[in-house]
């Protein structure tokens, strides 16, 4: 609604027109706008998506059976036939790396999901139910003091190695970290006036946790989950590297690097390619995590 045009009557003093100091900005809205404002999320997300697609579409990307042995053509350098070369058993490294993505991504996502959900549940309970807090925190302290590598080795000794046991071995030491984060968020939220208001309004404790506390923990948890994913992928590679991880029959980036270790000075390509893919994937996840943290932090969100 624009003001009606009025001719200025005589004797009326008009305030001087003040110029705009900034040109008008139209903040881009929606998902595209979000991605443009947070390029790290866009880049990290894109790279990660590429990796996921690669893993899912592995059979269609010009790969052959990654476990097919062909000793006749072992340790060939990268060429038109074997883009990444072959390893000491003649297996196509390109196919092994592409299929290896499946293991790493599965482990990364599974650990992130399991650790987050378990940590969330424990952290919520611990932060809100005071008597449980002291006990749970001591248990968490204990769990955190176990080095994940040692735990993995122990688990391997007890069970038969599989991707599942690798996931379990990496998840368990990560749970305390998430639960601590959730707990500290819950403790600060517990004192918020709107929680008091919910109590006064007659809301039951479980509902308070679910409706008032939980939604506000999701942002920090999501960020933490990305860091756990990155860390889990590296730990899986390390475990496979020392032989306590994924069974050698299943190609994983760590396994490939382990196998190529002895020859790495003369045939560096065996170690190089899985290492490169692992690095890029971890970088992608970290960028995504950093970007999300900045995007979801309400204080940083408003400044341009």
């Amino acid at each position, binding site marked *: 609604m624009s003001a009606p045009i*009025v001719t200025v009557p005589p004797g*009326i003093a008009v305030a001087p027109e003040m110029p705009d*100091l900034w040109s008008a900005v139209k903040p881009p809205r929606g998902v595209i706008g979000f991605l443009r404002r947070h390029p790290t999320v866009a880049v990290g997300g894109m790279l990660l998506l590429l990796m996921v697609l690669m893993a899912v579409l592995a059979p269609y990307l010009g790969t052959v059976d990654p476990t097919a042995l062909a000793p006749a053509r072992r340790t060939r350098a990268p060429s038109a036939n074997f883009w990444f070369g072959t390893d000491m058993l003649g297996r196509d490294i390109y196919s092994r790396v592409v299929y290896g993505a499946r293991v790493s991504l599965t482990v990364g996502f599974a650990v992130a999901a399991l650790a987050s959900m378990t940590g969330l549940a424990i952290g919520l309970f611990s932060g809100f139910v005071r008597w449980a807090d002291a006990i749970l925190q001591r248990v968490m302290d204990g769990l955190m003091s176990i080095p994940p590598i040692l735990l993995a080795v122990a688990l391997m000794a007890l069970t038969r190695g599989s991707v599942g046991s690798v996931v379990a071995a990496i998840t368990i030491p990560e749970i305390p970290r998430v639960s601590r984060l959730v707990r500290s968020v819950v403790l600060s939220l517990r004192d918020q006036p709107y929680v008091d208001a919910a109590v006064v309004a007659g809301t039951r404790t479980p509902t308070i946790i679910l409706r008032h506390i939980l939604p506000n923990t999701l942002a920090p948890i999501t960020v933490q989950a990305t860091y756990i994913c990155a860390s889990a992928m590296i730990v899986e590679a390390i475990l496979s590297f020392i032989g306590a991880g994924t069974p050698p029959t299943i190609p994983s980036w760590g396994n490939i690097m382990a196998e190529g270790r002895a020859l790495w000075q003369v045939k560096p390509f065996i170690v190089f390619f899985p290492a490169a893919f692992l690095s890029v994937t971890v970088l992608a996840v970290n960028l995504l995590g950093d970007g999300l943290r900045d995007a979801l932090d309400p204080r940083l969100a408003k*400044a*341009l």
Partner: protein
Amino acid sequence: MALLEVENLQVHFRTLDGVTRAVDGVSFHVNEGETLAVVGESGCGKSVTAMSILRLVPEPPGRIAGSIRFQGRELLTLSDREMRGIRGNDISMVFQEPMTSLNPVLTVGRQIRETLRLHQGLDNKAATARAVEMLALVGIPDPRQCVRQFPHQLSGGMRQRVMIAIALACNPKLLVADEPTTALDVTIQAQVLGLMQELKRRVGAAIVLITHDLGVVAEVAERVMVMYAGHKVEEAPVAELFRAPLHPYTQGLLGAVPKLGSSLTGAQTRLAEIPGQVPDLKLRIEGCVFAGRCALATDLCRAIAPALEAKAQRHFAACHFAPRAAAAA
């Protein structure tokens, strides 16, 4: 020539949500030794105005235009280095929250000494002596002990006194005080206001006092300027403003202030309200900024923004109807 002259000051901020015109064409001056109060509610731009005098506004996302002249010298074009020589030295600032304005890990003495060493080049011993002197000046009971204490060991009132001591340490000509007593309890506020009155007499600095509390204004200020939505709407000597406010916003504000003892006179005890709320500063406002809430607003007001004019001796108001408003008041 006035000590401080601000002309057509504009401060705009660009954020993700748009451009906020926090201060949009404000002019005023402060003479030597006088106290000017800047009154307004949240979002009116008074704090931003104060921060721009000391160039404390972050320059992206903010942008400043206009002129701020201190002793004839243009501040907005000075380099960072030159500005640092002025802050704490010629122009000082006292903030609202003493808890967060003092460094919690440094002793009080160290914080006072910092400014003395920087601007006056005093050595440790001389600086400490002067710090003790300043603390005594602001009424701290045991200055020698206080110099060695940390902020968290002091109460809110004491911390605010320390802030005043730091601000006055280098004998500034102008003190900018941003809501200095708002965070204090009313009995402590009374102490600090009394202190400020006394210091005015002894130190002779000019003061720009930012506040929303009209009671504090009535006690401490000599001249008052009223801000609304980034604009200055009225300016007058303090007695004149309270006696005969000309701008409808000022009248509304004075009507909304609770009056102690009102229940005893049998007068109407219901507070006068200003209907509606402060406009969104991200939208460009056509015409008078207050038109949306003003009982006297006409089409003229909504189309043409009134200029700030002298309506009486030293009394300025930005309202097309100011003379009529005075009659209706």
